[in-house]
Each structure stands twice: as structure tokens, then as C-alpha cells.
């Protein structure tokens, strides 16, 4: 979106009614899916309808002033417009996510979103390759769902420490995606091995685009493959955030855009960026 359009849109918004992107939802369920990840379903009217794969919500994890000061960004893991539900899949990690893990059905949840630029799927693509490591799968899951709904072929490489840590294999298979689990345990997630795997899939399957999320090592590898094979690709980037809505400039990273190194805000210009714009010195 150009600067000018942004200004015009903001003025418009100011003149008319205010968006309902800050809402209090109600937790429907919040269950462990393994010993580290939880799956939370939140009912909140109107937001599932406008959420795109790759977008995120900014969640207030504590209650009132108890808990960490800042919100925590979480990707939309699933949107269910018919039930007005948004799903999150999250790693219970530090103070924020531990508080989130304590929410029970019926509890309120203060959320801001959907935020950021999501993935884009070109209607001319027929086959896409998705590489997800660990909880990164949460960010990529709605992309796989939409791609399958548009009848694209989807190859999904799921990487994790052990076979038990692999998440979503059944879910993706049920959507009709081809799932390839790789693990640290048997060495198949090793970067070089994985790269051969990716290249083999790309070569045999007429892949049109590559997608990934989070992990710096995976992203670099995929970016290199994409550039070598002349394929487009997209990555959902993670960065520490304060506001999540483009005001604080705290989440910027250097990207290579239009031949120049520029600071872009992960929350606003991202979190999804073209693979070729990613810079890892």
C-alpha cells in the first residue's frame, strides 16, 4: 500500500466509524495438544470473517495489571466464520503464554487484530511447497487450508525434534496435502538433507511457490533454493513487538526491497515478506 493510499484510508477511517479490531472475546476451549503446545479457541464476532492466513492477533495474556506489560503476537491458526471463532496454537514458553495457558472456557480474552499482511496465493499457481518447523505450523496451517480449498496441490514438510513432536500431520493429510515429516532424531531434519528433499520435491512436482515461517535457518535455505530455481516464496517473520499496529517502530528488520536495504516493520509491512527480501548477513 503506498503512502498516499495509507493516508487516504486513515482519513476515511477517522471520518467514519472506528474499526472493531480491539475486542473482548470469550475463550471456548484451551487444551493441551502435546506437553508443550496448547490449542485455544476464542469466540469473537466478526473477526474470523476478515482474518487472512499469515495475519496475527495481539493478545493480552494477563488480567488487568497482573501479568506482563505487553501483549503477545499469535498467528491465526484457524478461522471459523460460521461459529465466529478464531483458533490459536501456541507454545507455552514464558510468562505471557503461561498466563494464556491458564485461561478456561468462559474466560474473557482481550485481543487486537487481525493485524499485518498475510500470505498471498496467486490464482495461477497449481502446486505449493510449505516447510514448517515446530509451532511454525500454526502460522502455515490456514494457508494450507486455503490453498487446498482453491484446489492447489500442497506439499508440507513438517520438521520437529522427535516423531511425537510432529504436529498437524493428520490434519494436513485430511485436507488432502502431501505430508513429509522429518525429525532431528533420525537426522532427516538436518539442513543439508532437508535441502535435497526440498530440491527433489521442487524438481519432480512443478512447485510454483515456497512458504515457510519463523526459523532463520530454514528461511535462509529456502530463500537460496527459491533464488536458484527462480521461484517466488514467502516467509512469515517473527520479531519482538510492542504495539503490533505499526506505531512504535520496535519490530523493524532490515529487508532488501527495490534494490535497497530498508527497515520495515514486521507487524505492518509483514509479518509475511517475499523470501527474496529477507536479509541474513
Amino acid at each position, binding site marked *: 500500500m503506498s*503512502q*498516499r493510499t*495509507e*493516508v487516504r484510508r*486513515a*482519513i476515511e*477511517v*477517522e*471520518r467514519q466509524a*472506528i*474499526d472493531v*479490531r*480491539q475486542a473482548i472475546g470469550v475463550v471456548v476451549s484451551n487444551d493441551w495438544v502435546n506437553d508443550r503446545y496448547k490449542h485455544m479457541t476464542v469466540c469473537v464476532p466478526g473477526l474470523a470473517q476478515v482474518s487472512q492466513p499469515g495475519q496475527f492477533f495481539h493478545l*493480552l495474556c494477563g488480567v488487568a*495489571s497482573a501479568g*506482563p*506489560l*505487553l*501483549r503477545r503476537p499469535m498467528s491465526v491458526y484457524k478461522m471459523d466464520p460460521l461459529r465466529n471463532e478464531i483458533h490459536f496454537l501456541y507454545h507455552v514458553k514464558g510468562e505471557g503464554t503461561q498466563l494464556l495457558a491458564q485461561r478456561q472456557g468462559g474466560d474473557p480474552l482481550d485481543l*487486537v487484530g487481525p493485524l499485518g499482511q498475510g500470505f498471498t496465493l496467486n490464482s495461477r499457481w497449481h502446486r505449493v511447497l510449505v516447510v514448517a518447523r515446530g509451532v511454525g505450523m500454526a502460522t502455515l496451517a490456514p494457508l494450507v487450508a486455503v490453498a487446498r480449498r482453491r484446489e492447489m496441490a500442497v506439499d508440507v514438510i513438517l520438521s520437529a525434534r522427535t516423531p511425537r513432536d510432529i504436529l498437524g500431520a493428520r490434519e494436513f493429510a485430511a485436507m488432502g496435502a502431501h505430508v513429509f515429516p522429518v525429525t532431528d532424531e533420525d537426522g532427516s531434519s538436518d539442513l543439508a538433507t532437508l535441502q535435497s528433499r526440498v530440491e527433489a520435491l521442487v524438481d519432480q512436482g512443478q512447485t510454483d511457490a515456497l512458504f515457510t515461517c519463523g526459523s532463520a535457518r530454514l528461511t535462509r535455505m529456502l530463500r537460496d533454493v527459491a533464488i536458484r530455481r527462480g521461484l517466488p516464496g514467502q516467509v512469515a517473520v517473527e*520479531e*519482538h*513487538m*510492542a*504495539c*503490533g*499496529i*505499526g*506505531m*512504535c*517502530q*520496535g*519490530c*523493524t*528488520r*532490515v529487508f532488501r526491497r527495490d534494490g535497497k536495504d530498508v*527497515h520495515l516493520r514486521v507487524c*505492518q509491512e509483514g509479518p509475511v515478506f517475499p523470501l527474496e527480501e529477507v536479509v541474513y548477513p
Partner: protein
Amino acid sequence: MTGADLSVQIGNLILNNPVMPASGTFSEPLAEFIHLNDLGALVTKSITLDVREGNSSPRLAETPAGLLNAIGIPSKGVQKFIAETLPFYAALTVPLIPSISADTGDDFARLASILEKQSVVRGLEVNISCPNLEDDGKSFAMDAEQTYRVIRKVRQATSLPVWAKLSPNTQSVVEVALAAQTAGADAVVVANTLLAMAIDVETRRPKLGNVTGGLSGPAIKPIILRMVYQVAKAVSIPIIGVGGIRSAQDALEYLMAGATAIQVGTYNFVNPRGMVDVIAGMQDYLQRHGCSSVREIIGAALSPLTGAEEKQKTAG
């Protein structure tokens, strides 16, 4: 019933209410969450003459009840600011106060005279207190003489209201505030962030790309409130209090300590509707306490105790 009068006056500028965003914690996207015209004023992120990239990442670290930032002053430069950003604000009625930042007094003055020509600009906040620009967090506002020198130059360059944004990293905030007043500032903004740091014990490295950064948020409120109280006893120009406000109660503490208006910073990140909630809570307090104007409580905690209060206090 009609509510209490929330309007306050800073220099010759009358604000509809005493609540505005703190520099660097607000920009255009907030219009998607609140009506900006509901605020008392709008202060922008500090802008510079030239284009600047800001600091390297990570730029943020969370601390107990605080936020550590080392954004620096990424800036598109004043010309692009005029061309691309000002049109947005021209469509609003709320007064716009750009915050300006520079490395020298002359550059500050140059910025002031450039911006003065823009009719949408209703005043200038002079950020002489950013702890990230120079060595070891030093800034003009750590020193009364430097403060006088810079504010004087800005004062001579413009007839716009001039607000001097002070630093809490000085031990002489009162002297610095007096220097700003003598130099002709219409108000002092107390204060910017406290110089601070955090270390990642796993990597054994500072958490911020810039090593040190500025601490904001509820953690610093008691410190800045004390400074407002001290400054209020010394200066005659209005004070704008800023530091850790996240409720009407916090804002009222600042007003009672002697601030005429307040700014909300970090809390905008937590609650995009926060400033509107603060205004509503203030109105509610004033009505509950039978005040017809917010001005009745400004400086209320400064006056010595009356005999009756003294008695009530110790007996309670």
C-alpha cells in the same frame, strides 16, 4: 447532566482535554482504533532534518512493568514529513505538535523555522532528551546551560508554542526546567525515558542492539511523578507530565502533582483505546468529586496540609 470542563491552556494553546500521546508512541494507524479528535493534542514521533534509519535490532526488551526501547530516531526527514504525513493531520481538528530532534542547536532552529510555515503545525515539542543519540546516553537536557542554549535558538526561530521535553537522567531536573523557562519555553514536558539496559544471560550479551535504551512504562511512574512535583514547585510555565500512565488515576496523580496536561506513551501499545479510557475516567472522577473543571485539581497535592486534613489523615 453536562460533564466537568476538561479544557486546559498551555501557553496560548487551549486543549479540549489534558490527554495526548507521547512522542514516538503514536502514529496514524491509531485512527483505526479511536477518534483522534477526541484527544487534547497530537504529538508526533520525533523528526529530524535528514533521513535516518534508527538503531539496529533488537530494539525492544520487556522488563518488570516496563519497556526498554532503543528505537533511536528513524526519520523520513522533515521534507517527506511535510509532504506525506502532514496532509493526514490537516484533515483533523485536534492540534498537531510535531516533536523535533537534532544534534545541534542550529539544526533545531532550522527545523523549527521550516515547520512554522505549515499551518497545520500548532506548536513544537523540542526533544532535547533522547537518550539514544549520543555517547553513553548523554543529551542536551542533562545540563541547564545546554538546555538554555538550544531552547533559546528554537524560541528565536519561531513564534509557535515551544515545549521543551526534559530528561529524567539528570540530577538537576529543576534547574534544567528553569533554564527552559528562562529561554522562553511555553511548557516543559517531564520527562523522556530513563537510561537502562537488560542482559540475556544465555548469550551473555545486552538484549538491545544498541546496548542501552530508554525505560518507559508503569515502572518509572513514581520517579517521573516526583520530578513533576519538584518542577511544579519551581516553575511558572505549565508542565506536561509523562511516564507510566495507564489509567485515569495515574493521570490524576500527575495533575495533582502540578501537571497541566499529560501524555500517554507505552500504554498506547497495550491498549490502543487507552487514551480515550483515561479521558473518560478523568471525567468520571471529577463528577464523582463535584468538580466543575479539571483545573481545580491541578497542583492539589502541592499545597501544604490544612489543619483539618492533617487531623483527618493521622486519625484515619
